[in-house]
């Protein structure tokens, strides 16, 4: 069998997904045996023009990590889509927007203002901002355009498979590599993880889910045996897909929701609002007000990884609306 042609790309991401591929340790040699890497910006010196020169569908599988939030990322997503037989949204950012998508609670103008003017380490009285086009003596320089809205990969191009996780755990990476090698991939559209929720797979002791106080992580040392939610710690397990091996739970940290919504759930955050409100014991105004106060940042907590893929997707763009 001819070797598979494998491409990897990073868009709006931290690089952790690329590192996760290396975390396969000695198994990376097995990957190298079945596949030739034809594009991997973080590790290999291929350029965009090398990809452009390829024939369409020349790449067998593209593992695309990171969300899409700039014109360059969108261009490369489309380019890799055209050149790849199978497109895999690799990691939470490509699947659901991930941490970068929290930028959807603000907009480009506010981000620019914060990054180039307001941040305490800035000295920018002239208000110099990066521009898309800049004239210099040697000619015109160009930078990619930053978008107002962070997008998931599937909002830009067709995607065959989703491998969630921040980053995807090694066993899931090997699972998809294995499926590729043996040509036993699931039907397109599949999420390479569990069909159940994390709670389903968590082996902590669960009793009755009733809480009357919510603790933030620094306010409590949790019992390592008992359900974290029952101890009053906001754990996203009830509305998060399993298959991660409960990595965080095993080190006594609550789930933050990086595997996204489980099968059949449209909006992870809405389900979490529902779940937390159901188990909090409050009937009078005072207790309910306390609950609301204890959940300091509901949208940021419940949509930590899933904002770009949620029903509302982003904060309303007031100016655009009145202008349009």
């Amino acid at each position: 069998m001819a070797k598979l042609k494998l491409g990897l790309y990073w868009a709006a991401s931290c690089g952790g997904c690329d590192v996760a591929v290396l975390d396969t340790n000695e198994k990376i040699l097995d990957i190298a045996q079945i596949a030739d890497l034809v594009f991997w910006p973080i590790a290999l010196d291929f350029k965009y023009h090398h990809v452009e020169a390829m024939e369409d569908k020349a790449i067998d599988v593209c593992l695309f990590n990171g969300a899409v939030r700039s014109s360059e990322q969108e261009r490369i997503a489309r380019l890799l889509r055209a050149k790849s037989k199978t497109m895999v949204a690799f990691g939470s950012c490509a699947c659901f927007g991930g941490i970068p998508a929290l930028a959807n609670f603000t907009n480009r103008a506010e981000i620019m203002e914060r990054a180039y003017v307001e941040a305490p380490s800035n000295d920018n009285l002239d208000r110099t901002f990066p521009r898309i086009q800049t004239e210099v003596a040697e000619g015109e320089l160009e930078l990619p355009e930053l978008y107002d809205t962070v997008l998931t990969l599937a909002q830009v191009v067709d995607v065959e498979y989703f491998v969630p996780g921040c980053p995807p755990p090694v066993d899931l990476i090997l699972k998809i590599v294995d499926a590729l090698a043996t040509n036993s991939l699931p039907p397109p559209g599949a999420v390479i993880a569990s069909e159940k929720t994390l709670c389903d797979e968590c082996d902590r002791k669960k009793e009755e889910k009733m809480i009357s106080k919510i603790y933030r992580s620094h306010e409590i040392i949790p019992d390592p045996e008992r359900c974290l939610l029952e101890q009053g710690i906001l754990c996203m397990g009830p509305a998060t897909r399993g298959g991660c091996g409960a990595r965080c739970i095993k080190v006594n940290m609550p789930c933050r929701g990086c595997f996204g919504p489980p099968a059949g759930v449209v909006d992870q955050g809405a389900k979490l609002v529902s779940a937390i409100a159901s188990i909090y014991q409050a009937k009078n105004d005072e207790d309910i007000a306390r609950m609301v106060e204890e959940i300091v940042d509901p949208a940021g907590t419940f949509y930590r990884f899933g904002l770009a893929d949620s029903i509302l997707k982003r904060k309303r763009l007031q100016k655009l609306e009145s202008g349009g």
Partner: protein
Amino acid sequence: MNRDKFEPLILGFACNWCAYAGADLAGVSRFQYPPNMRIIRVMCSGRVDPTFVLKAFASGADGVFIGGCHPGDCHYIEGNYKARRRYELLKKMLPQYGIESERLRLEWISASEGARFAEVVMDFINVIKELGALGKRQDQ
């Protein structure tokens, strides 16, 4: 749409046992209120998944109304308390999305309160008219 004559689109969820019966009574008693609200009957206000509320706003609703039984009156014992807690959490979350929290309203209306049903709906419509259109979201 003509800006001077903004007619809001409101989605209402009414529980089968109280608020919907209240709406029915408002109807048979011929209490008049403007036709801006489309009512969906649910078995309990506790059935109103926050997903429904977000979906309504994303699909172009200017306001979302939830009607349930008075505290202590829930046919399912405490569905309305759960609805209340979800509602309060949503009220905190909506402004983070740039949606005014007044666009979501929860009211307790019993089966005998037809007049009150018409009243609170009218009041809610006025609040939404004051706030203006939320409109379809740009990115959809």
